[in-house]
């Protein structure tokens, strides 16, 4: 249906081709994932399909792209985009109208369809959003906004749907919800769907084909199973196959068919025996000193009608020296609010927060900053200077710290920012931005560091690096608190997990116990790492949180293996 024949493209004045001699065919009714590192040309490829290239971004375009046999060269953005819908990664900026219904009728109205209202309503119905029609877009949650963006794209009844990294901005529960919708659109409405996706676990569960891009060209396009089985090639390109695939690969690298989904893995490991292991030996907590303490804290925000919606209810919580706390819970559970209450960006309505026994009621955020560093979810909002180095030294400089040069230099080195230090934070890549934001926080030499979603929207390779970096925090701070959706991070980093649900602490436990307790996971709508699910599937108890741990718990049964391979 979509046919690329030797397509190349480069931006005006640029030397390098962003797309190089791309020839590929996407057939009707495909569900294809596009993978590849940064700068592989994934977005550019997709923008050729909806005509933004070459009609909007004028540049050197060579070759031929056709949809349904129609040459795109004889078309324009308007007619191409009514066939091809596009949902951006920063979908927030895609929503341009105040209310939901306005938003979904926007495209059909612009293209002059008489039945624009019906079209919009139909799109809302398709995604079960009808009840939101009269809401203001800004009042919706992130997941809802993404669906509205999708509905807006669907209102033109396109044949092709392109979605750019949907999971990056959504929490895992919403990501699953979104993919379920996509699955429905694909199977029921027969849409051809293309997703740019890093998360191979989603690819394995939902996509049919995988297309790998590298440096502007299409390396290959294979069925999903075959694609994810190329473990070595993928890891080399910093794409990480699903955890179950990795586990199986480490177990038997030469196996012909590695499992890619949980289900397959269950069967694949069926004939393995499991080592028993008692509950892990927990060190009886030494005398830890309490640093931050919440005492009966209530917090809520005002709505338009000046009513107060409670966010945090009667919170009692102690953060002690040596703690690595992960705050988990679904959106709106109050994770970020707790961080803000500690750093003083917001004040409790009732109750009090104490720092080493002293009330923080009358302490300004500026003063608290001398002990507490708060690192935002969105690093871009932390860059207030025109270069990284100035951002790092800002805190020290306004305080005339005698050793500001020294500390700044040390931090720059520690975070490997030597090359980037004179660049503006906003112009860095996602991973570099995170690194810089962490550096900014630690240059404040805090005792407590608060991090909001430090691994959000990072690709998996960068995320791994980030987790490793967070592991080294202990050497410089007394306690660290991370609010996160990333269960991988919880599993590998935290020593203590505080589970929140609607503003209340429903559990204060260890990662091990959290992941062993499926009931708790469900109640807080958390999505466990795949390897943990596999443990549940294979009845490994207590669960293992890492692939290595998992591999240590299973054993290959010689006799069973033979019949296993016969079955295959």
């Amino acid at each position, binding site marked *: 249906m979509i046919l690329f024949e030797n397509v190349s493209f480069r931006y005006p004045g640029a030397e390098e081709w962003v797309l190089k001699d791309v020839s590929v065919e996407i057939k009707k009714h495909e569900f294809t994932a596009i993978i590849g590192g940064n700068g592989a040309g994934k977005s550019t490829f997709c923008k050729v399909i909806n005509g933004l290239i070459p009609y909007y971004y004028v540049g050197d375009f060579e070759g031929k792209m056709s949809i349904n046999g129609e040459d795109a060269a004889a078309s324009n953005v308007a007619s191409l985009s009514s066939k091809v819908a596009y949902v951006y990664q*920063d979908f927030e900026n895609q929503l341009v109208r105040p209310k939901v219904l306005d938003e979904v009728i926007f495209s059909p109205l612009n293209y*002059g369809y008489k039945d624009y209202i019906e079209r919009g309503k139909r799109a809302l119905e398709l995604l079960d959003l009808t009840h939101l029609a009269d809401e203001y877009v800004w009042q919706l949650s992130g997941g809802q906004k993404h669906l509205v963006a999708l509905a807006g794209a669907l209102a033109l009844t396109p044949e092709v749907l392109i979605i750019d990294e949907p999971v990056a901005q959504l929490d895992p529960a919403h990501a699953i919800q979104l993919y379920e919708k996509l699955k429905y659109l694909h199977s029921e409405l027969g849409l051809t769907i293309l997703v740019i996706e890093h998360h191979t676990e989603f690819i394995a569960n939902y996509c049919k084909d995988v297309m790998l891009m590298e440096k502007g060209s299409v390396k290959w396009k294979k069925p999903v199973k075959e694609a994810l089985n190329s473990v070595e090639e993928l890891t080399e390109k910093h794409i990480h196959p699903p955890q179950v695939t990795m586990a199986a690969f480490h177990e038997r690298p030469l196996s012909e068919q590695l499992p890619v989904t949980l289900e397959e893995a269950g069967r694949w490991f069926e004939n393995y025996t499991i080592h028993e292991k008692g509950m892990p030996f927990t060190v009886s907590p030494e005398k830890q000193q309490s640093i931050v303490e919440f005492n009966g804290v209530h917090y809520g925000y005002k709505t338009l009608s000046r009513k107060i919606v409670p966010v945090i209810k009667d919170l009692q919580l102690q953060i002690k020296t040596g703690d690595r706390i992960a705050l988990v819970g679904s959106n709106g559970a109050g994770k970020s609010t707790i961080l803000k209450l500690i750093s003083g*960006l917001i004040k409790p309505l009732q109750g009090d927060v104490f720092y080493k026994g002293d009330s923080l009621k009358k302490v*300004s955020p500026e003063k608290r*900053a001398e002990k507490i560093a708060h690192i935002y979810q*969105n690093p871009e*909002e932390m860059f207030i200077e025109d270069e990284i180095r100035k951002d790092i030294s800002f*805190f020290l400089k306004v305080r005339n710290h005698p050793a500001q040069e020294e500390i700044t230099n040390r931090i720059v080195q520690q975070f490997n920012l030597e090359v980037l230090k004179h660049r503006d934070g906003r112009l860095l890549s996602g991973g570099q931005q995170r690194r810089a934001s962490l550096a900014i926080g630690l240059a404040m030499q805090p005792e407590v560091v608060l991090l909001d979603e430090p691994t959000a929207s990072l690709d998996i390779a960068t995320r791994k690096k980030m987790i490793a970096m967070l592991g080294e925090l202990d050497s410089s701070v007394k306690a660290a608190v991370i609010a996160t959706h990333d269960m991988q991070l919880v599993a590998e980093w935290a020593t203590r997990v505080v589970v929140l649900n609607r503003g209340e602490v429903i559990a204060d436990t260890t990662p091990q116990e959290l992941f062993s307790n499926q009931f708790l996971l469900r109640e807080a709508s958390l999505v466990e790492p795949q390897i943990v699910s596999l443990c549940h599937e294979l009845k490994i108890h207590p669960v293992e949180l890492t692939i290595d741990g998992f591999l240590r718990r299973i054993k290959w049964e010689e006799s069973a293996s033979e019949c296993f391979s016969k079955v295959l």
Partner: protein
Amino acid sequence: MSVFQKFFSKLTVENIKIELMRTAYGNEPTPLAKLDPRMLILWVLIYSIIPWLTHNQTILIGLTLFTAVLAYMSRVSPLLIFLLIVGVISQFTYLVFAAMFLGNSFTVLIAVIPVTMKVATVSLATMAVFTSMDPEKFSDALLKLGVPGKFSFGVSYGYRMLPILIEEYQNIIHSFRLRGKLPAKPGFLYSRYVFYYIKMCIMAFYPMMLNTAKRTRTTVEVLEVRGFSYTLENNIAKDIKLNYLKMTKYDYYFIGISTLITALIYIVGYQFPL
């Protein structure tokens, strides 16, 4: 507690934000909202000009009262109307004092009364119409009246983006506060604090400008894909979209009653000039 302390204690960004949002999104339906916005715009224009064409005080009193009643009808609270009039008067207070001082006479006091009423009439008329008009409707009306499509887009885009922009600005301000340092002493009349905050407000626009630029690029690209530029070139969509703007019998009633009352005011004014 001094006024300043009160001000700073209330100046949590959260509170300001919610007040802003309330004014922007908390519209309630009013009687005037049912009318055709184009007609209302025309009406305001006329009422912004009429008062300046006469010096007859009876007419001016009549016009002020009429617009005050209309403002009241469109649910502007009486208190706000009162405050508005006080505000208009105080605008001229310094002028009156200065003139009395320089001119050594009280005539200015009387001379200023008509101009006060003129300004009040215009303000009340504007208030009556625009408190009840949804910004979207207003922009549709302008579009229909031939104002470029970009303006009407600007209105709804602002309507949409306002909360996001405020949120982002708030976060950047927070960033400054989380790393900055309050002046050790408040200074004379809290001037050091004021200076600290104002400097922060200005410097926060540096990151804000860059972040908004990034955002803008996606938005404009999206507008292209979603056919906005296509509409600007064609009139199909405009016609479909603005189809709902129709003069109804209520509009004619409104015009009729308005004309009648205005005429009455003029007749009375010429008969009994003050």
